[in-house]
């Protein structure tokens, strides 16, 4: 009998899991443990409206405290879990408290990948992953502050756009030859670079950061080409790493995340994992994957909760992502990894277009720029594996939905 379910983590997956457990009628004890002191909250706004101040702190949590009280979900916030002992099914918290469990769900998330260059530890070098990071950045910026963003991915570019809107001088240093190179087509990278430059952001590619310099605090970033970029603050958005320490120390298999099966179960039948920290097998994609996305965390958290209760709900979804940069919305569905054809619909001059990736006649991914219609149509076409009519697809005057 399952009387206590322990959830470690306070992100999307954990929040969705505890909600699902109660919705499904689980009446036992639920304890949510999170190293952060805040109620479980949404991360996507951190680099956007929360950083800009447009979204107040009280609108960030998924649920108010009353929800947890009403549904008897015990919260242990601000106290990290430090040890997992599987043989006795116990988790020890940093304050010494020991919690037993019948089922354990690990929603440990991902952490910002640290800069590895010299000077990375200087005061004034920031990351953007949680509300504490945002508070530090907000304190560091002033109108006209010179911000150097290392990394031209989602976090780097969203943060660059927000800081620019707040009146900072912003430079983005990207290692690759184009921004967002791992997630979008070159044409889309080019569009976003133009948009950022039009707003007065300096976007520099092929820039290998050698070190961060400064006496007592950050003063400049030095690149391999000898260029020096004066800075009041530096924000590194150079990727994220799955958080696995608690699991790995307890002997659970971890390889690019905590290894789980399609039911979110680790090799220990009492322990499950979901969200950014979980590496799961996808039947659809025919390989193991670990996704860092709201949609994946939400769905996997939900599936894990159902499976904790003994259901058999396989997690296998078509992932989707979004990014807001100035007034542009980038909507992505699917994974642009296994394809043999790329089709551009529309063009960047209208600031509304999409790039479709096909394998044969099957749509596998779409990047839609300010074009929610193609994006929504693609979500369904990809999920259903509907064969497309390539002539219609190439005609932007025909909706993607009708290109079948």
């Amino acid at each position, binding site marked *: 009998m399952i009387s206590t379910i322990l959830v470690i983590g306070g992100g999307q997956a954990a929040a969705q899991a505890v909600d699902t457990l109660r919705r499904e009628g689980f009446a036992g004890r639920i304890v949510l443990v999170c190293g952060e002191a805040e109620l479980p909250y949404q991360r996507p706004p951190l680099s956007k409206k929360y950083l800009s101040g447009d979204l107040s702190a009280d609108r960030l949590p998924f649920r108010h405290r009353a929800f947890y009280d009403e549904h008897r979900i015990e919260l242990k916030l601000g106290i990290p879990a430090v040890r997992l002992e599987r043989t006795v099914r116990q988790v020890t918290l940093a304050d010494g408290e020991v919690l037993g469990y019948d089922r354990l769900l690990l929603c440990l998330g991902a952490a910002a990948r640290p800069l590895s260059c010299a000077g990375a530890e200087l005061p004034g070098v920031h990351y953007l992953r949680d509300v504490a990071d945002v508070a530090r950045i907000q304190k560091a910026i002033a109108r006209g502050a010179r911000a150097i963003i290392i990394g031209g991915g989602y976090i780097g570019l969203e943060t660059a756009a927000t800081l620019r809107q707040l009146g900072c001088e912003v430079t983005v240093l990207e290692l690759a030859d184009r921004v967002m190179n791992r997630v979008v087509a070159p044409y889309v990278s080019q569009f976003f670079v133009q948009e950022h430059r039009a707003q007065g952001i300096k976007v520099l590619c092929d820039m290998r950061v050698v070190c961060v310099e400064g006496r007592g605090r950050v003063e400049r970033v030095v690149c391999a080409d000898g260029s020096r970029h004066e800075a009041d603050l530096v924000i590194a958005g150079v990727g994220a790493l799955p958080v696995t320490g608690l699991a790995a120390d307890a002997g659970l298999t971890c390889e690019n995340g905590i290894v789980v099966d399609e039911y979110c179960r680790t090799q220990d039948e009492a322990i499950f994992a979901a969200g950014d920290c979980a590496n799961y097998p996808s039947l659809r994609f025919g390989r193991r994957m670990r996704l860092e996305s709201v*949609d994946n965390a939400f769905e996997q958290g939900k599936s894990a909760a159902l499976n904790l209760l003994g259901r058999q709900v396989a997690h296998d979804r078509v992932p989707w992502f979004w990014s807001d940069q100035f007034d542009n919305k980038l909507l992505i569905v699917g994974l642009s990894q296994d394809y043999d054809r790329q089709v551009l619909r529309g063009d960047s001059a209208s600031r509304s277009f999409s790039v479709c990736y096909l394998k044969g006649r099957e749509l596998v991914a779409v990047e839609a720029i300010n074009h929610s219609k193609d994006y929504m149509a693609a979500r369904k076409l990809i999920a259903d594996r509907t064969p497309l009519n390539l002539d219609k697809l190439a005609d932007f005057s025909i909706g993607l939905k009708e290109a079948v």
Partner: protein
Amino acid sequence: MPRIIFNEPSGVRHEIEAPVGITLMEAAVQNRVHGIVAMCGGACACATCHVYVDGAWLRKLEPREEMEEGMLECAWQPQGNSRLSCQIQVTAELDGLEVTVPQQQGTG
């Protein structure tokens, strides 16, 4: 505070006191209206906070913007009175607004 009424497809009716300035979606989520999933948290990126706006209230709302329009076109069973609740700000004028949650969210 303005009163907003959410009807779940099951027939459950929620009368919610919603503070001015938040969105209809936030009011629904905080009050656990079943069927308002709101996965993206209000970014107009998921179409999982779709509602049907009842009767004459539709005219009192700001019209849909292009992004919302596109999201709704391929949402599950869109109607002329479909809206994404994350795109509607609660105002004093909306006191008494009544909306119905569809059977499903996301793509149709």
